[in-house]
């Protein structure tokens, strides 16, 4: 048992940021809706640079519209841009949902997005007729860029979607709502796999697994406009009020679940992300609690496979090794707990957010660790670099932005989370669930082999 040593960034400047601003999280959330389009109410760069970022990580198209705010709007407000933007988007793209996402500019100008959307909806009704216009849902999502981070933006977006699209409950649909957080397509697919083993259907709020990993089949792909396969249907979001429960995988993404609980009595469970044995057990227990279903043998087998590889690998190669973990607060806390289960030491866990959920998760982890854990909040990569220069570790686990100083400090970097742009396929390989944890332990152990073992030495199992 040990303690968490919480440290805040001790300078004004942010150097090599670990987080970005709110709208990015909202764009990610809306992209997971079937025929859903994010409409960013801001400057063109607000959408363009996020599109670059998504394309770099997922290696997929990413269609995000923008209202192209410019100088006039700063003076007269963005009313015209938003209303005509919605009109153009509706008539040209025929989306099912337009997520109207605010930015720093539109928030400071003080645009009344909800009011403008009502006017736009009236105009659409006149132009397209009531029925057609009714098919296009427009959801205002407030994401001021100067408050918190993209994780908050994601949370705000899911909350706005549920608030606007979930309908009054009718009969139970026997399903489970899953709010995945900002994770990879492979992770969502793994969660769906677990649900199918349990024998329960899920509503993923929202499901980017197909939109951000879609097949190249020009004959069945909608290209004019481009709509990828998959995503959560609007009807499913409407139906989320009839579900047995909502599980939010990430601590920062609880508002949607809480909304469904307060408004429609759908019980909620928020975090921790199912990485490692304890956290995944917790997830499965929640599933059992909400559905009243027995846990099938197949799931217990998968758990057994994880324990099996832990038993094999941890004591021989991993035990006692010091690790630095950085990036996404939920994923970092999950991995920190998992490395403790492997007998490793999470010496430093560093994230760009300051949210209390993360700190409390890290306190749990610290209790399970033999040595104290440095928990860096509101931090950046430079701070981590400086700390590791003084007090090096044997492994780093985090995203690609850490690659430069990892190389400089000669510490191997195991890539997880978002963004990973200097390796391929990582968005497809899950790190959640028992199976995902097996992938993670393999990835960690192989990296340890590469760095710390003489692979050529003998042919026997090392």
């Amino acid at each position: 048992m040990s303690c968490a040593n919480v440290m805040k960034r001790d300078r004004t400047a942010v150097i090599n940021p670990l987080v970005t601003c709110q709208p990015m999280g909202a764009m990610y959330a809306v992209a997971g809706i079937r025929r859903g389009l994010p409409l960013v109410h801001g400057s063109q760069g607000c959408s363009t640079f996020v599109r670059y970022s998504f394309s770099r990580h997922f290696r997929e198209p990413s269609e995000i519209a923008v209202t192209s705010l410019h100088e006039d709007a700063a003076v007269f407000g963005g009313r015209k841009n938003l209303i005509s933007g919605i009109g153009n988007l509706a008539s040209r793209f025929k989306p099912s949902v337009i997520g109207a996402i605010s930015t720093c500019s539109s928030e400071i100008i003080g645009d009344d997005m909800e009011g403008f959307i009502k006017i736009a909806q009236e105009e659409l009704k006149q132009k397209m007729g009531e029925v057609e216009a009714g098919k296009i849902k427009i959801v205002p999502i407030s994401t001021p860029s100067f408050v918190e981070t993209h994780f908050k933006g994601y949370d705000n977006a899911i909350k706005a979607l549920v608030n606007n699209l979930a309908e009054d409950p009718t009969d139970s649909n026997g399903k489970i709502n899953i709010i995945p957080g900002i994770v990879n397509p492979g992770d969502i697919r793994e969660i769906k796999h677990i649900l199918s083993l349990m024998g329960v259907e899920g509503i993923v709020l929202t499901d980017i697994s197909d939109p951000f990993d879609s097949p190249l089949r020009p004959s069945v792909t909608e290209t004019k406009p481009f709509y990828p396969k998959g995503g959560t249907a609007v009807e499913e979001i409407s139906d989320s009020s009839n579900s047995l429960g909502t599980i939010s995988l990430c601590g920062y993404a609880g508002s949607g679940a809480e909304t469904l609980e307060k408004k429609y009595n759908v019980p909620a469970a928020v975090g921790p992300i199912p990485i490692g044995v304890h956290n995944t057990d917790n997830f499965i227990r929640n599933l059992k609690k909400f559905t009243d279903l027995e846990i099938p043998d197949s799931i217990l087998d998968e758990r057994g496979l994880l324990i099996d590889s832990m038993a094999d690998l941890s004591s021989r190669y991993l035990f006692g090794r010091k690790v630095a973990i950085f990036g996404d607060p939920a994923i970092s806390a999950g991995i920190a707990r998992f490395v403790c289960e492997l007998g490793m030491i999470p010496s430093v866990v560093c994230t760009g957010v300051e949210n209390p959920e993360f700190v409390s998760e890290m306190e749990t982890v610290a209790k399970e660790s033999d040595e104290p854990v440095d928990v860096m909040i509101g931090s950046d990569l430079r701070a981590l670099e400086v700390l590791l220069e003084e007090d090096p570790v044997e492994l780093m686990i985090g995203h690609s932005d850490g690659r430069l100083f990892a190389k400089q400090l000669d510490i191997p970097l195991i890539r997880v989370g978002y963004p990973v742009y200097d390796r391929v396929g990582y968005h497809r390989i899950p790190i959640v669930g028992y199976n995902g944890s097996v992938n993670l332990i393999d990835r960690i152990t192989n990296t340890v082999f590469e760095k710390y073992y003489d692979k050529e030495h003998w042919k026997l199992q090392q």
Partner: protein
Amino acid sequence: MQNKNSNRQQDQEKENQSMFSDDLPNIEILKESKMSIKVPEIPEEIIKTLKSRKKHMCVKKDGTNSIPSCNEVSVPGMVTQRSCVYGGARVVLMPITDAIHLVHGPLGCASCTWDIRGTRSSGSELYRNGFSTDLQEKDIVFGGEKKLLETIIELNQIFEPAAIFVYATCVVGLIGDDLKSVCSEAGKITGSRVIPVQSEGFRSVNKSLGHQLACDALLEYLIGTEPPQNKGNVKRNEVKDHQDIDHSLNILGEFNVAGDFWAIKPLLKNIGVSIQAVVTGDSTVEEIAQANLAKLNLVQCQKSSRYLADAMEELYNIPQIRVNFFGVEETSTSLRAIAKFFKDPQMIETVEKIIKSETERVEESITPYRQHLSGKTVAVYVGGNKAWSLIRAFEELGMKVLLTGTQNGLPEDYQRIKETVRDGTLVVDDANAMELARLLDKYKPDLLVSGAKEKYLSLKMGVAFCDFNHDRISAFAGFKGFLNFAREVDRAVSSPVWNLSPKIKAPTKTDIFTARSIEKKPKEEVTEIVQGSE
């Protein structure tokens, strides 16, 4: 449900038919002869789009204006391929290697843009870090000036940079922070160069303004200035002898993406010119500060740097010539122009020698690529000068440019395009994602040359793609670069992958088995795969 599907299928077939018949321009390409390419008949309506967008597309035809409407507001609600003014400014300045590039605004503007440009450095790596003032709600209310000053002082202490460029973002313009006075105060306190860049994102719909504002910052605060006193130990470029002074030049608008400048550098050295400064690829602050000493400005990216060249001509009497190092013909022309400018008989002779030997070398290696690529068609859709500077290079590979365009061209850019492209080439301005999809669908180029945002859309439509933007990994400039270019284009177009997936429109199944014969792999293998997957 089934009914719906079959309806859709019918629609699809109908569309297929129309795509393949009268709708499709009849493009006949005569191999090996650049000038006698038969002009495809382009229907009057280029593609289906909004009324207001139609005038942004035209077909180059002799005797007509052939310049699309441009530099206009993007239609709100479109998936524009454009960026913001800050984006334009950072593209120009961020390659300066030994400077800190501090973004004054909410965190996102820095987070999404640090280290995303493949400009290489032979020295400092400082420019690759992301710096932000991370404006928070209370800064929005009370102003961010104090925080900015603190940040500059702090960063100067940690890194001792040669300069700190401070970029304004949308928020700064809205809350009214006085960037200039903070920078000037910070300059006094730190004794360092602190340079404001007034690049509020929403200032224009066109990031070209950002290019211009970046050039303004260089002109006002850097070029022709002495280093700050406390940095007296900063090494200045020492000019060795008179020969060097007389033959010194700057390269403007060369950003050393993937090491392009390094491909040009030895050529220039061999012909006997010395490079004073590159603006801004692989450059240092003090090199640029002395750019006013050069005798000539070469302008590579005319889109971003024409303005700077004009200003330097006016301020420092430095004449300019436009150069283009993409392709054999363009590189040769550029080298000749440089020699001609310096009126040095020895240089003229050397240039001819180099051109002769390099051209022969390229010719030797280029044949296999040309065999693969001859007659293939290309669409170019980029942000800058590549919309015209690449055209000849493609023609040298025997390819035909069907379409070219930019996201933020100005009338003078389209004038250059008009001067460069053949009759019958489509010219488009600010095409959004859907228009781009329609253009690819209708004109079916064998290759799209564009940036990262367009890449995956293009692949999903079955159109091969070649990155000519920040993300590319090999240098394309100069004679050697042209071979890299040929290799990359060949890799993209000739990849066997395109035998496995039908391009753009799905032919019926029989088409996959018959019409699209597989050249490199045994047929059975492919049919098996198709049966397995479809």
